């Protein structure tokens, strides 16, 4: 589903990501953990095509994000850590705009908006301008917009920040459902308990370099993920 090979991105003289390689298969929830400034967001932004990288290759289902970004973007969805959405639109207008761009049919979009908005208890607020939304509401709206075209790959940067416990629970269910249907999730998080329970695979990044990657059992063994992470981070 997602192949990152030898990805390198430099800001000035600082290497934000250094020769990073990862492979994510269909059906996998892949957690990406690391300290602040380790290079997680840079990697996620490079995967979504927002950020040009210096070296390496990123393939989504065999298509390069460099050479055919549109084909790649059709298959993925991205939720940033701080979803700044179009504040001049209402929630409903925004969802319809995204659905229009992805060419989602009227019946499907109506059903999906209703399903996810109801699940997140956001239906009554869809008529409100986004400028009136709380951070959590924006996060929910960004999540619904990401799921509206049923992407094959979802890239999420700290998706649980700002969500209430119920919304977090619903999101975890949505993530699992998407992967059970052949999709894949690549997300960064600092909540190691969530990563431990939710992820099929995990990668730990430190100062731009991958220091551990594999299935949850391979990475943590008999220890907790927190213990392993703290030990690796030194």
């Amino acid at each position: 589903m997602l192949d990152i090979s030898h990805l390198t991105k430099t800001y000035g003289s600082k290497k934000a990501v250094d020769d990073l390689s990862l492979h994510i298969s269909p059906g996998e929830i892949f957690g990406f953990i690391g300290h602040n400034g380790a290079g997680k967001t840079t990697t996620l932004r490079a995967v979504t095509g927002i950020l040009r990288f210096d070296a390496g290759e990123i393939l989504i289902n065999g298509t390069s994000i460099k050479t055919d970004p549109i084909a790649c973007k059709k298959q993925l969805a991205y939720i940033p850590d701080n979803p700044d959405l179009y504040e001049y639109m209402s929630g409903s207008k925004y969802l319809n705009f995204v659905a229009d761009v992805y060419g989602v049919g009227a019946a499907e979009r109506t059903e999906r908006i209703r399903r996810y908005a109801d699940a997140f208890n956001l239906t009554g607020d869809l008529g409100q301008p986004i400028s009136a939304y709380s951070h959590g509401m924006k996060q929910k709206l960004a999540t619904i917009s990401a799921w509206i075209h049923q992407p094959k790959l979802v890239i999420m940067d700290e998706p649980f920040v700002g969500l209430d416990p119920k919304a977090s629970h619903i999101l975890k269910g949505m993530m699992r459902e998407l992967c059970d249907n052949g999709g894949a999730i690549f997300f960064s998080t600092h909540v190691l308990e969530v990563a431990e329970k939710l992820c099929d695979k995990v990668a730990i990044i430190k100062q731009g370099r991958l220091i551990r990657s594999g299935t949850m059992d391979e990475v943590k063994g008999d220890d907790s993920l927190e213990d392993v992470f703290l030990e690796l981070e030194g």
Partner: protein
Amino acid sequence: MLRILLKKQIFELLRGILYDKKHNTMRSGGAVAGFIALFLFVFASAAFAFVGMSVALSPLFDLPDTKWVFFAFMGTVAVVIGVMGSVFITVNSLYHARDNDLLLSMPVSVNAILVSRLLTVYLMDAVFVAVVLFPSTIYYFIHVPQTALTVVSAILFYVLVTLLVLALCCALGWVVARISTHVRNKSVVTTVLTVVFLSIYYVIYFNINTLLSGFVTNIVQNGVTITPLLEPLYRFGRAGAGDGIALAGLAVLVLALVALVGFLLNRSFIRIVTTSTAGPRSREELTTEKITPVRRALRNRELKHFVSSAAYMTNCGIGLLFLPAVGIFSLFKGPDLTAALDKAGLIHLLPGLAATALMFLMSTNDITAPSVSLEGKSLWIAQTLPVRPEFFLRAKLETASLLTLPSMLLSVVLLSIGLRLSWLDAILLAALGTATSLFLSALGLALNLRNPDFQWTNEIYPIKQSMPVMVSIFGGMGLAIVVGGLCVLGGFLFGPVFGQAAAAFFAALLTLVSLLLRRWIYEKGAAQFAQV
């Protein structure tokens, strides 16, 4: 705390001038000097008009007991100009700043936030009032002997007028904000009020010379009788002319007004900035979702952004209203103009003059110039959607054309009727207008792609104070003067056919340049947009 906030506010104010956001460096001395020169040019151009008012009032300078009339008149004009120029900046600066929530979440008093925000507004007021009062008062000083006391009085008068303007702007801004909290579409309210303000302004502007000459003649012939109705204006004028008691009275009144408005703002600030007016959406409404083709969805997005922001509409699209308004005006006043030109044997210059006016008005439609910067922090959406970047840029250009072309064409039809232009002149005017519209929208977008700014805290910065907007507006005005001037000059020197040929040539040239600009936008500009 206040000092920290003031420092932040001044930094925001100056950053557009001193800082090159593209290269993350301070601007060179030459670039800063260029900005200052541009500012001084605009200041001097505006000030020139007000010196004309002083000249018109000059017959009163030699009469006894009429010095106050000068200060009453110019002071009132300064208040009107200041309030009209600043009221919406006040609303935006106070209530729509993006860092309001951040500051309110910190241990910062509402007063400190208000005072720091109002500093920017006050500086703007001071500039507007200075444009009116400085050159006209200098003219007055040159022609009327002064003492040190009267000069000091005039300076204090200026300061008090700026404070009066600030208080009135805050009071009116408060009213606008209060109304806005009770309606769903705030931008419509603000835009309607802006248009009303501007209409009043232009009615006064176009009639001021007639009013002024009648006013002065009447005073010279009959003197002034101070009726109870005229008493406040009399006191106001005497304050500027050096009457200590009147000046003290004005100072007490203005300071009391400032204190009252400050109290009002302090009491209502949090409530206004945290009030939301939109209603809930029922599940039933969700059944009406409709499919829109991508291209139209992108255009709708641009249009929605435009109509949702009063600042955007009034600063970048006011020409949309003025173009047909001038056309309607020509229906009434056109016969007088054509008769006057006919009498002078210059009727063949009329199409060139119409072209100048049309292009000049079109330069106020700079919808694309801030459009890239206005993507702000939500730029990631455009960058992650599976749409080629040039489609977003195409949507910006198409939206600008959809808004400006009908307005321009309506204006051309009305002007052609009002000025009785020939079919050929009308067609050439429409062609030149269309070419200008295409060129200015492409120029604005190209400039903004080259100089984007996504880090603004208030959208007023990219809309009003950014380099692309400045260059687009003043470049457009310069273009109107050069192109229109050459059409007029050609007609004057070589006859009407040359004027028509010049119009056709410039229409073709502008179309060609706009096509080249579009090519750059869709290729290099799109690549920049995708990777900003």
